[in-house]
């Protein structure tokens, strides 16, 4: 990977990693009496690791000039591997926190293993670690193929990928120590947030610079979704994390907003993180890898445009449905509820578009577990967007809010839609990236598919049951007008479902382990083939494809 960089790019890498190492050292010194000092050492160790990696290959020969006539896929390959590592880590912690609810002793009396600290490791691990790396990896692939242009330079994609993973490491390690802003999906503190802004701006610039070099006249719809993901996440991240640190030597910061404004900003962020991180980016994946794998163009390109703008402009207003029956003004709640219902239109347009694309390719769906992953993802996307719109209705929300139904809804989306479309896309992408005819074992893809599907169904049904029972128990009154059940009664009623949920999660986790093994073995197949001297590449277009461009 390093030997693919030019000498000047290697030098730039050393300089930037050196600067970050200095920042880490400064954090360690200034924050020596605070948790930020520990993070300083982590930043220092991380950047020294990068320096060591580059320095040992610094004197390798320069890559050949004809690399410029090929796509640059090294960061995508690394991103796929990182995504799978984070998938295993994040899902392992998911199973652990699920088990904690049934068997609370599993904290082993350690502060770092308490539910409140492990849970964000799970959520950030799967959303940002697994999802984020998969999004970066696939977006760089889709961007180059659909624009028919190579990435503008070789350094910035590495900066984005490695820098983003530094953010993920800071996030996860911080939670163990107790560093948190206590904002859902935005837990990392101010210094990690600032770092992510820099990484994210570079990511967006890669997109813009590559699109400027495109040889295709029209920007393929998948790129619109990816760009919406990058741009909107930047806006959300900056606004929601506006905060003033206690001092440069303290991890703690205070939000610029307070009270209900803070809650509204947080859930404007939180729901749009679902919308643009967990939906728009993965729709970008779907609109490229599903037609590609099915061998059929998207059913209606026009519909994909209409649903793109629908999603982009309506999701922005839906966040306040997280704050029904709170101090938030009634009209803002109603606004969020209304937009959540209207959102069903563009959401089902995308899900229907995907399924209609498969019309005529159902035999492939039957035979090919990779395509089946994507098909099931589209179905779960349709189901969970319907469920989401339904739960956003204030009266429904009065039953569902604060119960496990919400957790079931999130996981129908996260396991059924986000993870399934990612696994399907990665299974399609891995053989292309490592120049293999097929994945190491299609049989293991089949095994993974059933593990994932069974796991998701057990999980979601357990949480639906549990959530509705919980919601009903909390609102049942006896003859004298007081609550019929205590909170602990509802917990006892939840226990079988918590155990079922752990089992479902375990199935899903096992599937991710199988996937990692399968992908790793495919990479080894490619290394053996390379050693045997077989190499083929596909190339970007060298001239304009349409006369008059």
């Amino acid at each position, binding site marked *: 990977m390093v030997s693919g960089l030019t000498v000047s790019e290697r030098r730039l890498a050393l300089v930037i990693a050196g600067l970050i190492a200095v920042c880490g050292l400064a954090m360690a010194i200034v924050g020596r009496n605070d948790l930020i000092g520990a993070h300083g050492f982590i930043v220092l160790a991380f950047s020294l690791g990068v320096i060591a990696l580059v320095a040992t290959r610094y004197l390798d020969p320069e890559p050949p000039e004809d690399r410029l006539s090929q796509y640059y896929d090294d960061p995508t390959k690394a991103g796929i591997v990182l995504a799978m590592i984070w998938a295993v880590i994040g899902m392992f912690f998911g199973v652990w926190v699920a088990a904690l609810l049934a068997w609370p002793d599993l904290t082993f009396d350690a502060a770092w293993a308490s539910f409140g600290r492990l849970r964000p490791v799970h959520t950030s691990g799967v959303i940002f670690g697994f999802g984020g790396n998969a999004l970066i990896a696939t977006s760089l692939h889709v961007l180059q193929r*659909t624009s028919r242009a190579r990435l503008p330079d070789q350094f910035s994609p590495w900066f984005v990928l490695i820098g983003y993973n530094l953010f993920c490491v800071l996030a996860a390690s911080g939670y163990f120590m107790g560093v948190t802003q206590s904002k859902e999906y935005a837990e990392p503190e101010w210094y990690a947030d600032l770092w992510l802004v820099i990484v994210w701006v570079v990511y967006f610039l890669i997109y813009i610079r590559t699109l400027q070099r495109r040889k295709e006249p029209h920007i393929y*719809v998948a790129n619109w979704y990816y760009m919406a993901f990058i741009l909107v996440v930047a806006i959300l991240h900056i606004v929601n994390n506006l905060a003033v640190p206690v001092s440069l030597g303290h991890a703690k910061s205070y939000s610029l907003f307070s009270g209900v404004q803070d809650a509204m900003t947080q859930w404007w962020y939180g729901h749009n993180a679902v919308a643009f991180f967990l939906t728009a980016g993965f729709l970008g994946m779907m609109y490229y890898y599903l037609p590609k794998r099915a061998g059929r163009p998207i059913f209606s390109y*026009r519909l994909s445009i209409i649903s793109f*703008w*629908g999603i982009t402009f309506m999701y922005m207003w839906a966040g306040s449905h997280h704050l029904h029956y709170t101090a938030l003004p009634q*009209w803002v709640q109603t*606004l969020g509820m209304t937009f959540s219902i209207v959102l069903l239109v563009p959401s089902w347009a995308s899900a229907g578009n995907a399924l209609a694309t498969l019309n005529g390719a159902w035999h492939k769906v039957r035979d090919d577990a990779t395509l089946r992953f994507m098909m099931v993802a589209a179905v779960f996307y349709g189901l969970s967007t319907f469920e989401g719109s339904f739960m956003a209705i204030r009266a429904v929300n009065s039953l569902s809010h604060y119960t496990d139904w919400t957790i079931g809804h999130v996981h129908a989306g996260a396991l059924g839609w986000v993870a399934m479309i990612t696994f399907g896309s990665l299974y399609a992408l891995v053989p292309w990236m490592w120049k293999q005819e097929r994945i190491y074992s299609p049989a293991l893809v089949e095994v993974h598919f059933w593990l994932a599907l069974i796991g998701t169904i057990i999980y979601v049904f357990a949480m639906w049951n549990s959530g509705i029972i919980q919601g009903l128990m909390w609102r049942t009154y006896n003859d004298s007008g007081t609550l019929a059940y205590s909170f602990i009664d509802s917990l006892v009623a939840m226990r079988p479902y918590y155990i079922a949920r752990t089992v479902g999660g375990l199935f899903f986790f096992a599937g991710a382990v199988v996937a990692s093994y399968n992908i790793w073995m495919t990479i080894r197949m490619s290394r053996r083939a390379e050693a045997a001297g077989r190499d083929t590449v*596909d190339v970007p277009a060298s001239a304009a494809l349409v006369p008059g461009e």
Partner: protein
Amino acid sequence: MTFDHQTLVAFSKSWGLFYLIALAAVVLVYALWPSNRKRFDRAKNSIFNKDDRPGD
């Protein structure tokens, strides 16, 4: 006129509505404009122009 909660409400309920309707109209016109059909058909088929697999 003071800038308060009611101002925001009035703005959202009037201009917010108009801008979303206008936006929907623009998107529909763009997506359904007959002369754009060729460009969209080309785009949706463009991802098949060159395969990624070795040997193709």
